[in-house]
Every structure is written in C-alpha cells, then in structure tokens.
C-alpha cells in the first residue's frame, strides 16, 4: 500500500472534518496548515451555528449543496455525540406574516420532499404559540422543520481537531501558504512562511482565501471569492425572551433571512445581516450601526418582544466566502495531479462539512486510484473539558477534594474554574496551536458572560503566563500582546533615550 502525504490548507470546519475522515484510513499521512494561531478562527468561528434541515436548498439549482447538506445534518447527530460537542436539536420555524410570505415558505415544502427532509410542514397562528411561546403574535404561521439543530461551531472545530490529533494528524498554526510546489504536472508540496512541507495531495480548504490558493496551483482562474459580511448581536443569558425553536424570516434573493436563536451557551443571538463587500476586503469584520439597527428591527419581527439593548453583551461580524453563482467548488484535479479544491464553501457549509469530508474522500480515492484501507485502531470518541458550571454542588465538593483547582473560580459570570483553564491550555498545546486568552475563551466559555472578561481576562493571562513561563505582558490575547512591557523598564529606557 502506497501512503500519501496529504496537506490540508485551513483548519476550519471543512479542513478539520476532512482530516478526521481521512484519518480513518491507513493510506494517508495528514498535516493541516493554518494561518491563524488556533483552529477554527476564520469563517467557522462566527456564524449562525445552525445545522440546517436542508429544505432551503434548491436540489435543481444546487444539487451538490442540497445532497451534502442533507447528509451532513444526519452525520452531525452522531458526531456531536462521539466528540462531545455542545448541541441542541430544537427544530426551526420559518416565520411568515402575509399570504405572500406564506407562498414563499410553501416553496420549501417541495424542496423538503425532493431532498428527503423529514417532518416539514406548515403550521398556522392557532398552533404557533404552542410551538414557540416567544414568537411575535403578528406572525401568520410558519414552516416547521423539526430536524434543525444548533451546535457550538468553534467547539466543534476544536473537538474534531483534538480527535484528529489522537488519530495521527498534525496541525501547524501561524503557517501561511505562499506557494504550491508542482513538478511533472503533480503537486509535490507547499511553501509556507515557516518552511516547506512535502505532499502528494494538497487539499485547499482555505475558506476566504481558497481562491488565492487555487490560483497558486494554477487551476480555476475564473473562480473568485467575494466576502459577504454578516453581523450578529448577542444578548445576555438572563433575558426573558429566549426562543425554544430556531426562528427565522423567509429568505429573500439577497439574504437567507435573519435568525433569532438561543445558542447552546444559553444566549439569545440575532443575525446575520448580509452585505457584499469588495473582493479584497477579506478581513473587514467591522460591525456597523446600520447592521445593528437592522437586526434589532428584524429580531423584533420574529420575537414577541426584543430585550432591552442594555442586555446586549456582544456584537460581532464575520465574513462568508461567497463563490460565483453560489456554487461550491469541490474537485480533485489531474492537472496538477494531487491538487484538490474544497472552495467557496458558503452556507450551508457548517451543516455539510462532515458530508463534504466523506465526499472528498471518495473523490480522491476514485480520481487518484487509491485503495482505501481502514485503520484497525481508529479512535472515534473524544471527551470535552469537564465543566463545573451545571454540576451539582455535592458532586463539585467531591471533585474539589480530588483537585482543588475546581474550587478556584476564575470566570464569575460563567462559573469557570482554574482547573478548566489549565486543562484548556494543555489541550491547546497538545494540538499544536498557540495558547491565547481567546483560545481559552472558546474552549471554556470564560469571558463569554455579561462582563465580557473584565474580571477574568487578566487572571487567565496570569495563568497563561505561569503555565508558559513567559512574562504577563507577552501573553497573547487574540493576535497581539497583552501589554508593551514592564512599566519601569520602559520608562527608564525612554528617559535614557531622551538624554
């Protein structure tokens, strides 16, 4: 059996899912390169977090999207259990307010039938509040799709990364691809800012930058990604309007509709907006006042009442990679042999990611004539970090007696203990990512609460500084240092340089 060196570009949900699926086989020796300091910090980090039922995908216009979305929905139901990913499956309501809206909503019943999505039906006003007590009473009805779920998308990437590492995958962060090496019509590796890696197969899952990577390999010159910005607002856990179901308005040609959702962490989230940006605005994640007012308005249409804006704890924006005509570009090329595009994975990319991974496996096995040999000892399961947040206090008392770190609370809003923070740091190191305050937040929820880290950020930074053996000021928050340096030394140097 020939073993193939595979390099996956991008540790987002698509790249990491491909790594998991490929790691089931003896045939591959897998590395992932990621330009960010941690996994899942691109498109995967900031999105609506929904596992779509797939009744919104037009099977004639987008057959691949429709098929993989539907399959992905089913696979996630297993993956979240195998990998201990926070998830809920509340179902969703596409809410309509007029007969015109109703006609639009009904269109999706035929998609549901063709895509084999179970349980989709229309419900009217008389039933609406039984399904969703928080719905706007002015709603006429809704299209109900019971198989919709929501997961924690960043924890999903982290969970899959941890599992992939257990199965032999290597991750290289802060590694930016600058060249795809090709010889005799075949890829032979990549060059990065941190050196070269040999590869027989290069899989481009570079999210917002996938078109650049594709062009480096000399394929799909006409393929360009347009960044589409989506803004979100997040309310505190303690608001009294938290929908049970996933609510959203009917899609329009411009947007997929605005969602109001209670996240797996218990926050009311409203979003996204949809704004097409210029082709080079790949880092324009700014929030805007217009986007904010739009979301408050649309949220107000969905919900019986929008909580007071002073209950908003976070606003963020993300970019989605919009491919030409909305078509995903998934292909394994013969010229150059070994280059694989998994590019332009816009919505429903999160839902479809596991199915995309399986599709890519099949594609490369067929195209490159690989006889797949399953590993006998592939590790299917991964456990998350033990959280004390919802643990019974009698049990917590026992836990503290075994490890006093569970008795030191670092994040007051979310009740996160020192033991959890330290475990997160060790797990970040284990997957080969860079330990940062933000990375700890996404693994433990410390800093996700109403104070947004005012009380815990410096204490998490202290724990990082101690664990990594570096000065407090040089701890990384997201992408830069916490401080400039020692205040007295800086001042002394300044005075010396002045004299």
């Amino acid at each position, binding site marked *: 059996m020939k073993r193939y060196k595979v390099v996956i570009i991008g540790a987002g949900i698509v790249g990491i899912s491909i790594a998991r699926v490929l790691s089931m086989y003896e045939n591959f020796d897998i590395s992932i390169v990621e330009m960010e300091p941690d996994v899942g910090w691109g498109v995967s980090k900031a999105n609506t977090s929904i596992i779509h039922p797939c009744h919104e995908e037009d099977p004639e216009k987008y057959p691949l999207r429709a098929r993989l979305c539907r399959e992905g929905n089913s696979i996630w139901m297993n993956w979240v259990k195998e990998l201990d990913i926070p998830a809920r499956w509340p179902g969703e309501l596409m809410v309509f307010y007029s007969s015109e809206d109703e006609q639009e909503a009904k269109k999706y019943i035929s998609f549901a039938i063709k895509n084999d999505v179970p349980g989709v039906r229309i419900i009217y006003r008389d039933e609406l509040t039984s399904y969703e007590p928080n719905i706007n009473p002015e709603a006429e009805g809704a299209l109900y799709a019971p198989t919709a779920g929501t997961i924690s998308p960043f924890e999903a990437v982290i969970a899959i990364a941890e599992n992939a590492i257990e199965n032999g995958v290597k991750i290289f962060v802060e590694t930016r691809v600058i060249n795809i090496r090709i010889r005799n019509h075949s890829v032979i590796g990549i060059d990065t800012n941190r050196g070269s890696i040999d590869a027989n197969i290069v899989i481009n899952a570079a999210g917002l930058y996938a078109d650049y990577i594709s062009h480096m390999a000399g394929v799909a010159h006409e393929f360009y990604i347009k960044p589409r910005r989506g803004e979100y607002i997040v309310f505190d856990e303690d608001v009294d309007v938290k929908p049970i179901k996933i609510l959203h308005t009917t899609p329009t040609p411009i947007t997929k509709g605005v969602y109001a959702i209670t996240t797996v962490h218990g926050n009311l989230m409203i979003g996204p907006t949809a704004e097409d940006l210029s082709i080079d605005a790949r880092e324009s994640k700014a929030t805007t006042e217009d986007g904010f007012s739009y979301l408050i308005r649309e949220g107000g249409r969905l919900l019986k009442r929008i909580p007071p804006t002073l209950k908003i704890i976070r*606003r963020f924006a993300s970019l989605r990679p919009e491919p030409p005509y909305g078509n995903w570009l998934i292909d394994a090329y013969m010229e150059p042999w070994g280059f694989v595009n998994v590019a332009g994975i816009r919505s429903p990319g999160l839902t479809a990611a596991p199915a995309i991974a399986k599709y890519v496996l099949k594609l490369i096995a067929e195209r490159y004539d690989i006889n797949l040999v399953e590993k006998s000892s592939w590790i299917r399961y991964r456990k998350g970090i033990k959280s004390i947040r919802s643990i019974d*206090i009698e049990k917590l008392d026992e836990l503290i007696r075994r490890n006093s770190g569970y*008795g030191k609370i670092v994040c007051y809003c979310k009740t996160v203990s020192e033991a959890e923070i330290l475990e997160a740091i060790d797990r970040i190191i284990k997957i080969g990512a860079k330990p940062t305050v933000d990375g700890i937040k996404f693994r433990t929820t410390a800093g996700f609460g*109403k104070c947004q880290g005012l009380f815990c950020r410096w204490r998490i930074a202290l724990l990082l500084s101690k664990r990594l053996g570096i000065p407090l000021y040089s701890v990384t928050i997201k992408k830069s240092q916490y*401080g400039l340096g020692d205040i007295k030394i800086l001042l002394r140097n300044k005075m010396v340089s002045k004299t």
Partner: protein
Amino acid sequence: MIKRRADVAIIGAGPAGIAAAIKAKLLGLETVLIENRDILGGIPLQCIHPGFGIHYFKEDLTGCEFIQRLIDRMYSVGVDLILNAYVHSIEFNSYIEKRVNVITPNGVYKIDTKTIIYATGARERHLFELNIFGDRPDGVYTAGEAQTLMDLYGILPGENIVIIGSGDVGLIMARRFALEGANVKAVIEIMPYPGGLIRNIVQCLRDFNIPLYLSHTVTDIIGSKRVESVKVAKVDENLRPIKSTEFEIPCDTIVIAAGLIPNIELLEKIGVAMDPKTRGPIVNEFLETSIPGIFVAGNALVINDLVDYAAEQGEIAAEGAKIYIENSGIPTKSWIKMTLGRNIRFVVPHYISGERDVILYARVQKPENNVYLSIANLKIKMYSVRPAEMVRIKIPAKTITENHYVTVPVEVIPT
C-alpha cells in the same frame, strides 16, 4: 462539605463589606466575611492615588492606605473570613434562615445565616454596552483592567492611548499613563459635561495637558490585529454624531471609562427588585432589599464616587442586620417612598420611615448652580450640583413624619 452558622454573612471584602463586618462584629453579631479573591480589600488595592478617606477617616489617603486601615480594624475585632470563595447560590430555608453555598479550593461551604449583606461592588461597562461600532482588535481595555495591569502587575498596556468616557477611573488612569511615559491623545466624552469629579478633571487632565473632547463620540474603531486608530465626531443635542465633524486619531490602545454598573447578578437570580435608574436593588433605610434579611451596601447598591460612602453604607446595612435579628425581621412601618422630582436621576434609599435619621444619596440629571435641594419641608442650599458628584444629605428624624407623607419628592429647585 463544610458547615457554618452565622448571624450575618457578608459577601465581598471591599470597603463596604469590611466596614459592614467591623460594625456587625461590634454590634455583637456572629459574622462571616466571604471574599472571592485571595486577598482582602477589593478595588482600593489597585488605587495608588489619593482621595480616599476624607470623610471616613478625616484624612486624605491613597486607596491602599484607606483599605489597610479598615483591614487592620477588622483584624482587631476578629471576623471569621473565607477567602478564594465564590458564592454559588443562596437558598431560603425560612423567612429567617438563609443558606449561602460557597465554592472554595478547600471544598464547598454551606453557611446557614439569618441575614446577608451583599457588598460585591460594581463592574465596568464594556465596549459592547456602548454605542460604538467597528473592528474588534486587541488593545481595548477597561480603565479598571488597565489599572490592574499597571498598578498591581507593573505592565504598560500601550503607548498611544485614547480614553472613551470621562468617568473618574478613566481620568485617574489618564494621569497614571502620563506619569509612566505613555501618550494620552484624548479623552472623549459624549455628554456636554465631564463624567468625573472636577478635582480629577483638573488634577488628572489639565495638569498634564491631556485634551478632553466634550460632546464627542467614537464613531469607528479601526485595527486588524491591534488598535490602529479611532474615528471621533462631535455629537448633536440628541447625542447623534455629526458626520462632517469626523476626524481620526491614530492610537494603539483604547481605554473604556464609561462608568460602572452594580454587580448584582446573584440578587437578580433570587428575585430582588431592582431600580432601573441605579441598576441596583430597591432598598429601605436599613438598606434591606425587597427580600427580607438581604441587605446591600457599597457600589452593589449604588455607584458611589467616594469610597467613604461605600464604607458608610456597609455600617448602615450592619445596623439593619442587627435590628432584623433582634426583631426576627424588620418591623412593619408606614414606609414613605422617595420620588424623583425635578433634576433628580435617583435617590437611595427608596423608602424611609421618618422615625430615625437617614442618610440620603442622590444624583442629579444635569449640572446647575445656585439651587435648593428640596425634600418635604427640608430645603438645603447648594452652590452647584453636578451629575458626577453624588449628593449626600442627612435627613433628621421627624422631618417627614410630622406631615404624614406617603410619598415625598426629592427635587432640585432654582433659587
């Protein structure tokens, strides 16, 4: 599981909590003081500037000196302390008996107590609670966090700094930055008047030539990894930015000093009624909340601008706890409600009996000169009132009862 019994469990060992503990102990109450950090003192520990204790100790002290004096007093009366302690929940066994569940590195404590004094201080407003949009790069700190870094850990957060909001902590930090060789480019305040005390405007900004932009707001934050600049514009009378006045200030650091919010999460969870104006609990003259036997003091009650008042409130709450325990509950009274009259933003306490001397804390909505503060037939002449400066007045017993009021407006009247 570790069990304790107490007359009063005090949550939070800052100025209000420590002052409450000393008073409670002196009144003969079995007192437990619970603190979530590994050190007593709370926020004054990081306040190396003066301005503390002028009323309480009749001396101008630094925050550290002030709190050390209180801590020394506390040790001399002997208070039962639990450090590294996070209050997980409060349960009610009966009208009198409450249970406080506390997580510590030694295990879980269950403290059965008759009363609770909640003195957990405040938290700062953060970026997402302000109407400011743009990128979310590193380099954004709250004033308190910057103070923690500089004055507890000796770290300079950044070099070129823009401060959003002119609250006292922000002004103090402007001076600290200037003293440590950083460059404070601007303090931006959306209101037409400063948010902090006059003395801080003079001593922290003017003395260091730091520009204060009143009636201005930050319209955009720019930066990919670290803050690179902010856009600032003048605001109109509705506090909306005037686009044509927009200008950019290059900087690497933003410090948010946009005020404090009482830290009352646990009280909200157990259903204590809140005042939307103070964002703290509604209380009677004993600083007892809507739940009998639960008292509140310091910044958890109302945002004070002087530490002296926080300590004073701790003592009032301790006296309340004593009366509660002696009478198995605060005796029923014909409470008189203080209502908000002209130019008054809030008044604490919300209910008074008129039977005893009461200290009233109030804040005005807008600055005014030469006015009377009027409460029933009590009129107090004041040369100026300002939103940044809390008004504290003592209302003698019987001032109000004699007139059989049900509600009494507190108002500012021009002379």
